[in-house]
């Protein structure tokens, strides 16, 4: 039987100006070279053991053994994606899928380095005894084939060992520089089919990379894939950068920079490497957020010490002030349908969480439990709001949009600034160490049981998880 493939052309950052040089002299900006869109990339290797660990979850998912042998190739062919050719690339693809599923904490995968390599014809006709003898309950097969146009075709198949039948299959055509996306799509296929949840692996994270002593931290805007690969610094570190947010289509980043000496929100265009101020004002602007459709930007601006939330069209235009309470109204996260905004305000004394309609009307407090509540983020599924709970220590918590059913998910000394996975099942945040002030990225699922640290090249804070890549 011949593999039947859905042919999806995956063109990430369909680059209007891939090779454009930085527009401004180095002395007047803090931006590094624009992010290339193809070809060789700086890669941070996943490290087993050291940086990555999982709090054991004793649920039945843990027992679901998934065998993920190397992806096969019809003919070992040179490819820009791997200097050793498509056969070696096939093994790499399987390693990426293995690490995705292992780090998720729900499965017990076995990877290609401890399994035999299936042949190309076996991808669609598995040699069942090979895998059942190893106790596998699920089997992932895949292949990679170099096409005449230099692109790669990657196929992914999930088999149920008990039924000895195929559960799902899909295929993708990718540029060589985007081969990892095909692996993440395979991980998403397996995860979605087995969990019933929406996918999330094929996504990216923006965050702030931190180096230097506590009293003089260097903070750089950086981006990476959801598994830490394809890591890139966007700013040089000459000016402090904070609180990035990917636009829903990944074409832009909002972030705060002190590049002109004041805290200001900039809109950075990833394709061109150019950036603009979110609003032409001499006042400090902070806490940038996108609307779910990418048409609007929320920002908070302090005028004479009083901070309010404003909305401005993403393409530029008139800002609309949404809050006018005395005190600090800040942040803002849209409900997935764009009709409501959850935000933070200290109008009642301390930081608490409020909801308003998207036009600023009907502002009402929803957090009524002990302590303070900050940095609310509406789940992409709409059913939960994640926030920083301040009650002695700082911890990540979730609640229903009506403020009920509050649950604390972490127990660090200072866990702050939750951001949702694209499917609303996992929350990333950053954890600051008491004393040293060193920060790192962590993620926890909604059970609170699967907690792990994300590997980053240096210390890290302010994670912002983007949606599934377009």
């Amino acid at each position, binding site marked *: 039987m011949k593999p039947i493939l859905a042919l999806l052309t995956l063109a990430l950052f369909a680059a209007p100006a891939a090779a454009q040089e930085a527009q401004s002299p180095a002395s007047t900006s803090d931006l590094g070279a624009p992010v290339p869109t193809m070809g060789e990339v700086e890669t941070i290797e996943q490290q087993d053991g050291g940086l990555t660990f999982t709090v054991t979850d004793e649920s039945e998912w843990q027992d679901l053994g998934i065998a993920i042998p190397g992806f096969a190739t019809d003919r070992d062919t040179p490819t820009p994606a791997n200097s050793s050719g498509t056969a070696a690339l096939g093994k790499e693809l399987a390693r990426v899928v293995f690490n995705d599923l292992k780090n998720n904490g729900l499965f017990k995968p076995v990877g290609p380095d401890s399994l035999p390599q299936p042949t190309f014809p076996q991808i669609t006709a598995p040699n069942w005894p090979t895998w059942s003898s190893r106790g596998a309950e699920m089997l992932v097969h895949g292949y990679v084939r170099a096409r005449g146009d230099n692109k790669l075709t990657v196929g992914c198949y999930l088999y149920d060992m008990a039924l000895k039948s195929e559960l799902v299959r899909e295929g993708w055509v990718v540029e060589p520089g985007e081969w990892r996306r095909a692996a993440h799509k395979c991980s998403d296929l397996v995860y979605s089919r087995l969990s019933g949840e929406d996918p999330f692996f094929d996504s990216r994270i923006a965050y702030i990379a931190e180096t230097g*002593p506590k009293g003089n931290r260097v903070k750089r805007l950086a981006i990476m894939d959801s598994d830490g690969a394809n890591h890139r610094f966007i700013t040089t570190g000459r000016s402090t950068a*904070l609180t990035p947010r990917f636009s829903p289509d990944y074409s832009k980043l909002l972030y705060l920079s002190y590049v002109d000496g004041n805290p200001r929100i900039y809109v950075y265009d990833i394709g061109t490497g150019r950036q603009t101020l979110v609003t032409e004002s001499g006042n400090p602007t902070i806490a940038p957020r996108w609307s779910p459709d990418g048409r609007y930007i929320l920002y908070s601006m302090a005028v004479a010490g009083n*901070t309010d939330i404003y909305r401005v069209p993403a393409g530029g235009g008139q800002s609309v002030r949404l809050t006018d309470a005395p005190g600090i109204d800040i942040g803002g996260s849209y409900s997935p349908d764009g009709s409501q905004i959850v935000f933070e305000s200290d109008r009642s004394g301390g930081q608490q969480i409020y909801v308003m309609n998207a036009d600023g009307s009907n502002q009402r407090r929803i957090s009524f439990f002990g302590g303070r509540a900050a940095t609310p983020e509406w789940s992409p599924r709409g059913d939960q709001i994640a926030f920083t709970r301040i009650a002695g220590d700082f911890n990540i918590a979730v609640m229903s949009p009506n403020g009920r059913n509050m649950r604390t998910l972490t127990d660090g000394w200072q866990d702050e600034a939750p951001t949702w996975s694209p499917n609303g099942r996992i929350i990333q945040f950053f954890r600051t160490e008491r004393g040293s002030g060193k920060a790192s990225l962590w993620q926890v699922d909604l059970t609170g049981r699967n907690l792990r640290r994300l590997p980053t090249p240096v210390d890290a804070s302010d994670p912002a998880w983007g949606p599934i890549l377009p």
Partner: protein
Amino acid sequence: MKLRFATVALLAGTVALAGCKKEPPESLPPEPAPTTSAPTPTGPSGPVLGTQEHFENAVNGQNVIYFDTDRYNIDSADMAALQTQAQYLAQYPNISITVEGHADERGTREYNLALGERRANAAKNYLVSLGVAANRVRTVSYGKERPVALGSNEAAWAQNRRAVSVVVN
């Protein structure tokens, strides 16, 4: 003592404002001049007027005021310090300052940026109420990004909840 106040923006202030001016998107504003005190050469006659050292000497180190947790009100100790600063600014009408607002690490990042701005503005408003021209006092918030005390304890946090007046060079 009678205070004399300058009411016009003088050279230093004008330069500072130019630094904040909006530029077209592709050419970002220039890197700011460092706002923290830099060691300045001191001649035989002591710190030079226009330097941070001269200012700090003249106000006897009272260029910093401190705040309680999550608060931004100006208490009596702050008033005394700010009065001393206002006297200096009255004596030297060519001097402009930036008030840098800070928060301790025990707050969320974005809220602390807003809180630092509120603290810097509280200090500025008090200086203005004493007759200092508003355009001689710029504010900037660093939130929890620039702690001066590096511990994670009450004593360190108390030192970091501050508004620092810095002479604009």
